[in-house]
């Protein structure tokens, strides 16, 4: 299970600031979030930075970045310094 932190207005869009999600990769996690929170959330998600344990996935393996139990994934929208 990874802990997903929904930051700034991503929390408003999802109606929660934190969720636990079981996913093997960042790509899979994004798909699960889109399915769970709908299209509008999905559109906002496209502009978000995805940060795994404080590191942007750009410096990791993008959507193929593997997730391990206990990982913390932050979704950082542009207006929150993202």
């Amino acid at each position, binding site marked *: 299970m990874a802990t997903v932190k929904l*930051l700034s207005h991503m929390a408003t869009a999802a109606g929660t600031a934190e969720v636990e999600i079981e996913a093997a990769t960042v790509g899979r996690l994004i798909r699960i979030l889109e399915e769970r929170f709908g299209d509008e959330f999905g559109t906002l998600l496209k502009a978000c930075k995805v940060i795994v344990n404080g590191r942007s996935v750009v410096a990791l393996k993008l959507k193929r970045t593997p997730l391990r139990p206990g990982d913390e994934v932050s979704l950082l929208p542009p207006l929150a310094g*993202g």
Partner: protein
Amino acid sequence: MTSKLGGYMGKMLDVNLTTGKVENYWISDDDRQRFLGGKALAAKILWDELPPGVCPLSPENIMVFTTGPLTGTGAPCSARFNLSTKSVATGGIASSNCGGDLGIRLKQAGWDGLIVRGAAKQPTHLEIDGAKVRLRSARKLWGKNTEEVQAGLGRKVATAAIGQAGENLVRYAAIMVGERALGRTGVGAVMGQKKLKLITVTGGDHKVPASDETGLRESIRKWTAILKSHPTTGEQLPKYGTAGLLTGTNATKTLPTENFRKGSFKSWETISGEYMTENVLVKNSGCRACPIRCGRVVEYQKREIKGPEYETLGMLGPAIGNSSLEHVIEWNYLCDLYGLDTISTGGTLACAMELAERGLLKDDGLRFGNPEGISEMIRRIALREGIGNDLAEGAMRLAQKYGAPELAMHAKGLELAAYEPRGAVGHGLGYATANRGGCHLNGGYLVYLEALGPITMDPHTTKAKPELVVMQQNLMEAISACGSCIFTSYPVIPQLAPRWYNPHGLTAAAVDKVFQGLRFVLVSQGRLGPGALPIHPPFLPHTKALSALMGQNIHMGRFLAAGERGFVLERLFNLREGLVSADDSLPPRLTDELQDPSNPDSRVRLDVMLPRYYKVRDWDARGIPSERLLRKLGMEFALGMATRLRVDNSPHRARRMALRAREEESVQEQLKGARTAAPR
């Protein structure tokens, strides 16, 4: 000798507090074109007017207030002005930028700036009313806080005042300009040594002359539209203020926590910009002529007062383990009243807390996360009372005194701003090389490219970081020199529509590679000189506005060259005053210890980046600007000094260190005097 260029009133005011003499100070148009104004031009004036080796806390030190050509023209965010002097924190150059009314009022009164020399015998108020200048007694104001001193003077009077911290020569004393601060580098202590309690500026109805008024108005219109349409300047800063950055710095591990031991804070939510907006924000505020308005007005104990900005939240929040916004608001207000820089206050408190945690400093109250006694400690710092007297010396000297110099998070003696550089290593290089010490803005603010901006690159790679730091430092120096707020540089990094740019997809990886590849382009551009880049790019509207204003083609090449000149001259000033390449450093915690043990790149590799940085700048291995560079920039006047520095070998270096030690002794003498005079 006035000026043929638009944008300038043609003369500066030169006041000697020792003799009471008031004169005009003339600048050549040649210098105006080379340095524009602001901190760059102030560096030239200091270079010309201040003999090497002067004690920063002595009547011989001078204060140079400068505006930029855009100040007072109505251009976006152009209320800014600068104060440079010799730094009581670093022994090198001090510069501090402010958006209070003083700059605009100086120009309305007919002055491009103000030089203050000497020292008064008694507390003094310098009153500038148009062309009339008077030195009045400020004995009744001595001992009062900045709010009391500035109260009741009316909206048409711009003020600059020190509080008790400046009077007591605290090494990070600020000068308050209304509610805005000339905060960093201890400029308030220099003013305090001169017994100058208050400056007021009013009178005059001079208009800033423009070469092409219509062209200027048109470029201002377009410029404002650019700022309003960019996500950072059009949405984030107006909505959350700079405090909106905190969510991002926490997520990207660039939020200094518990004296920079960590890069994120578990209780960050209650001091975030979002929390402030939802709970205590009353309205936005801003410097004059600013369409962004990043300032905050918050409710505190049924009063409306200035809210904290990001740096204050970071340094009086996570840096000392505090998660209460209410406390930050209170301490921010207290610092303003006493006239203390909030960044250095937080950095020094954080250092003291770690010293106390290790049992090196005995003071029960100082503990990470314990807000008890902080208000009282701020008072004791400002009055140099008890242990407050040690904290008033700043983190570097405090940690040295208590036997653990490695616990001071500073560069060159100035406490670091609120970004943990192991989460953005280029930003760390900026801190190490910033001329005024550990400053995020003078350092090039690379964290925006590495972690916080709309498009970013790998924050841990060292590739291209030296080149990007150089580019950003020159750019920000130029923006500051022209009288504009540094935040107008944000649109240089565009927001790309999601269909073009996916921050977690392949396009982000491609952008990262482009940034890293830029190093080749940036190096060759740097070698070409001011004639290169004869363009006016839309993301840098400053160049068109300046050209219309000044009646000169200030294209991108010339604009960046002005910034580079300012930066290089400040560097030479530092070298001349005895700073050496070893001062381009950071605490070992940041260079040697990994922030994240699973990430071998999570430390600031200055050993890799600094030599490259010197090369890109065309400085030699000891960080001395080359003759070729000085000729390229038209700075032949500095060739002699640069040559002397270059042939300097170790005995000479030892002499320079001795010079700094003598300076320090002289500072200590002054401090003894200040302590006996401190009110109890």
